[in-house]
């Protein structure tokens, strides 16, 4: 590729990238950089696994994982079916408020009526005490509750369209697949333990010294070593602490036997000092408990795991983020950049998003501050809104007890405060940059947890309430009718496996 050799006029292009880490995050980064920026030489240093990297350990993903596969050119057969993965439509949240449980699925709830969005009308009906639960108006939530699955209808405007789904992965199988893929497309693997980060006089990373006496040099270093951040942490320690908004600092993860019936819906249930989950993925169930160590001891948390769970792994989480995940020629991704409890399964998503951003914004070898600043601005905005979304579940809870009362009393971060004020006042959701969750996701949680705006959009007054109630009832009936003939989720998985085997 001769064009690469032309002088850039400012600095040479990055050619050699070193990825440190051995988990899903590291292999994802190595594969993506090699595949999408094919002139790069990519070396991975798997070192020893990070025991606490939630992005590498959690088995549920957001829909963005599928887009990440597409960009790599990974087929559904290879990435999903052959790794024994499942498909997930959403999560049901139970016990977060005194209200009924609610489903957060990734897709639309109702359709706009006149000039105003569906939820404004729904809120008006709710204020009059005449609304059925908000998630009843989401086709994806209905599919999930019914244990059925189909791909979103490609026909625009169809009822069972307008939603996305994520994955249930078996982390070990999934990592093995990524590793095989990465090695196949030319990622170099260098064995050895990192014993030192060698620096240049200007502070850039010169190379990594290994325990076998060797050294690995490169132009750019990607730190995917988990919370330890063994590369990036050597450059500076700046850290924004989020613990006042995200109260859980311990996570127990346990694998269980294969479920009798896999489910496309995860179950997340609040408890006295945090929450627990249950995921029935095709190859095995998994469960976990997130809790605040100040309010609950480990023995009590273990007691919340289901009876069929295996021996759990305990992970300590110090929630927060690096204000500058990328400094000089070292960029931290995954838990090395941002740590937060796995509620809403954002850990791997943030890592994928960082990788996409590295691909899109790759600077020159000098890693010019102006380019890194834009990268860091986007990462910070994205991480802050994920934090807001996770914190929302706590702040919008009305559970009794000291743990819940304390977290509900904390002043939210400014960006979440804007969302809450505008929503509580009149159901508005101001646009934020780098938002991970769509408006309908915010609505699902806000309205699912009973946060009701005081007022509604004045523009909807022209539609009589009765007319909207009829429209809502019609929509629910249409959803039920559309969902009924959809195959059960296990049957869908079976047919998918058959298609791939053929």
């Amino acid at each position, binding site marked *: *590729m001769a*064009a*690469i050799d*032309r002088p*850039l*006029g*400012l600095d040479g*292009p990055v050619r050699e990238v070193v990825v440190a880490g051995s988990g899903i995050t590291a292999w994802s980064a190595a594969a993506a950089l090699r595949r*999408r*920026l*094919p*002139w790069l030489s990519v070396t991975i240093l798997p070192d020893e696994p990070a025991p606490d990297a939630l992005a590498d350990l959690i088995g549920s993903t957001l829909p963005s994982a599928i887009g990440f596969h597409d960009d790599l050119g990974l087929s559904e057969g290879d990435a999903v079916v052959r790794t024994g993965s499942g498909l997930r439509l959403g999560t049901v949240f139970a016990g977060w408020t005194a209200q009924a449980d609610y489903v957060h699925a990734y897709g639309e709830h109702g359709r706009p009526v006149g*000039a105003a969005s569906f939820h404004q009308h729904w809120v008006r009906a709710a204020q009059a005490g005449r609304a059925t639960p908000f998630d009843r108006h989401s086709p994806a939530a209905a599919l999930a509750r019914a244990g059925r699955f189909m791909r979103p209808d490609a026909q625009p405007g169809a009822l069972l369209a307008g939603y996305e789904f994520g994955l249930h992965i078996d982390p070990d199988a999934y990592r093995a697949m990524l590793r095989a893929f990465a090695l196949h497309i030319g990622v170099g693997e260098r064995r050895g333990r990192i014993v030192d980060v060698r620096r240049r006089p200007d502070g850039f990373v010169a190379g990594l010294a290994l325990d076998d006496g060797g050294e690995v040099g490169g132009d750019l270093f990607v730190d995917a070593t988990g919370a330890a951040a063994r590369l990036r942490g050597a450059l500076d320690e700046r850290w924004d602490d989020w613990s006042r908004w995200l109260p859980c600092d311990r996570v127990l993860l346990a694998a269980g036997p294969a479920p009798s019936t896999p489910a496309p819906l995860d179950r997340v249930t609040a408890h006295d000092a945090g929450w627990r989950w249950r995921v029935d993925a095709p190859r095995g169930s998994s469960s976990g408990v997130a809790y605040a160590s100040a309010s609950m001891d480990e023995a009590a948390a273990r007691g919340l795991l289901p009876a069929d769970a295996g021996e759990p792994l305990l992970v300590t989480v110090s929630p927060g983020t690096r204000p500058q995940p990328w400094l000089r020629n070292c960029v931290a991704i995954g838990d090395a950049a941002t740590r937060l409890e796995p509620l809403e399964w954002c850990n791997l998503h943030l890592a994928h998003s960082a990788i996409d951003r590295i*691909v*899109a*914004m*790759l*600077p*020159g070898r000098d890693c*010019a501050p*102006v*380019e890194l*600043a*834009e990268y860091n601005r986007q990462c910070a905005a994205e991480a802050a809104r994920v934090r807001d979304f996770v914190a929302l579940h706590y702040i919008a809870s009305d559970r009794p007890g000291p743990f819940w009362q304390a977290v509900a009393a904390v*002043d939210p971060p400014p960006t979440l*405060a*804007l969302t*809450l*004020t*505008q929503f509580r*006042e*009149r159901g*508005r959701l*101001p*646009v*934020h*940059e780098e*938002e991970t969750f769509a408006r309908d996701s915010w609505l699902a949680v806000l309205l699912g947890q009973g946060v009701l705006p005081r*007022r509604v*959009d*004045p*523009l909807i*007054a*022209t539609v009589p309430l009765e007319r909207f109630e009829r429209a809502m009832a019609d929509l629910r009936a249409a959803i039920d009718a559309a969902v009924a003939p959809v195959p059960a989720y296990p049957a869908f998985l079976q047919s998918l496996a058959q298609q791939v085997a053929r």
Partner: protein
Amino acid sequence: MSGEDLRVSYGEGSGDGRLRVVIVGGGTSGWMCAAALARLLPTRCAVHLVESEAIGIVGVGEATLPHIRAFNERLGIREADFMSWTRGTFKLGIEFRDWGRIGDSYIHPFGTFGRGQGEIDFHHYWMRMREAGHAVPPLERFSLACTMARENRFALPGTDPRRLSATFGYAYQFDAVLFAPYLRRLAEGLGAQRSEGRVVGVDRDGQSGDIRAVVLDDGRRIEGDLFVDCSGFRSLLLGEALGEPFQDWSRWLPADRAAAMPCRTATALTPYTSAIAMPAGWRWRIPLQHRTGNGYVYSSAFVSDDEAAGALARSVEGEAMAEPRLLRFRAGRRERSWVNNCIAIGLASGFLEPLESTSIYLVQQAITALLELFPERRVAPSDRDEFNRIIDLEYDRIRDFLILHYHATERDDSAFWNYVRTMTIPDSLAEKMELWRRRGRIVKYREGVFLDASWVAVYCGQRVLPHGHDPRADLPAADSLLRGMAALEAEVADTAAAMPDHLAYIARHCAQAAAA
């Protein structure tokens, strides 16, 4: 969160539960606001507009952005009807002449360059070939909007997003002096009340500071719950009565006057506005059906009023239809646009020169925000703060984009251009420019009126070319890329050539309106 502020309370309302909204000023912004409130919130407010025929309207905001179409649609205004009433023409973008260097010309289109290429913008491929020494045509040959504009053609955009015909949008150029009466008719038909008179006094509540009433020159008192200041540059309520401070941006945007003069249309009816750089500012040229609007926006520190008027008179293309009229202004905005129960919209809230036709857009955004945040009995601080946040963001982002036009120049032929070329620009813009210069990257925002293609157009059009490009643009083989670009250029040219002439399109369009 401090809970709700109950400090501000109102009087009696209109007696039927609706808020009494008093709009001061009946120009474009005043009547746009009156019509929107009367149409969209008939059960929430009673609209009363006060204007004086003795006070002229500024009415220079004749060129618009595509957003105006959504506004008209919400108000139920039919395009053809609107076009014939306001003697309007279609607008595909703005031609900038003599900005980077004297003799340069580029179009900032309402549309994109190239076709969707996945995540890498077309300009990266274009820059790659250019750097490699290939004789690539100018960027605008890959934009359907630019090509249509250059050839005076117009047709409505297509709806299939995969097709080239869907890669552009359009706005209008129209006679603002005719638009206000059009909206007035609409608003009054929807029940808006109008009073003739000059506001000479503002009665405020001693405790809260809220406005209770405005007093007219004949002694009448018009009471209200909410006051919308559309009084133009004077900012009668927000600026004069409430004393809201003004944030002055003239160190970056030094133009403070304009001389305006319509002339007969002598040349083709272009589907674009022109902004022609002048020794101490720039000159607009807005072709309407019945005349061409012209004006010289200049800095009085660099040229006298007489010189400016003379330069304008000499440069217009057709026979003058009036003597040059002088307007004075200052670039900047009020610290807050909504204070107490007073909301300033349009020039009363701030001023940005019409270089990118943002005046009516800003009015529209303020009205949209007001509709969404329309108060109940009392003003909730959260509504007011959110309104101000939205409006401030709009002003600030447009500001940087306007400054770019002045700063990104090689001109050194006058003291004015030497000043703007060498002035210190805001950090927010300096960072954007540096990011562009290095690798052709645009800072992306979800909100904000001018998106990637607009920045690319101005940078490239004013000779700010990056040192590098997205390295992924190097992946396709050079010869296949060149073939693809040639095919695209041909498709753009053919698509434009198959479209009707702008004037012919309007004639058919308006004839239909007259028949209907």
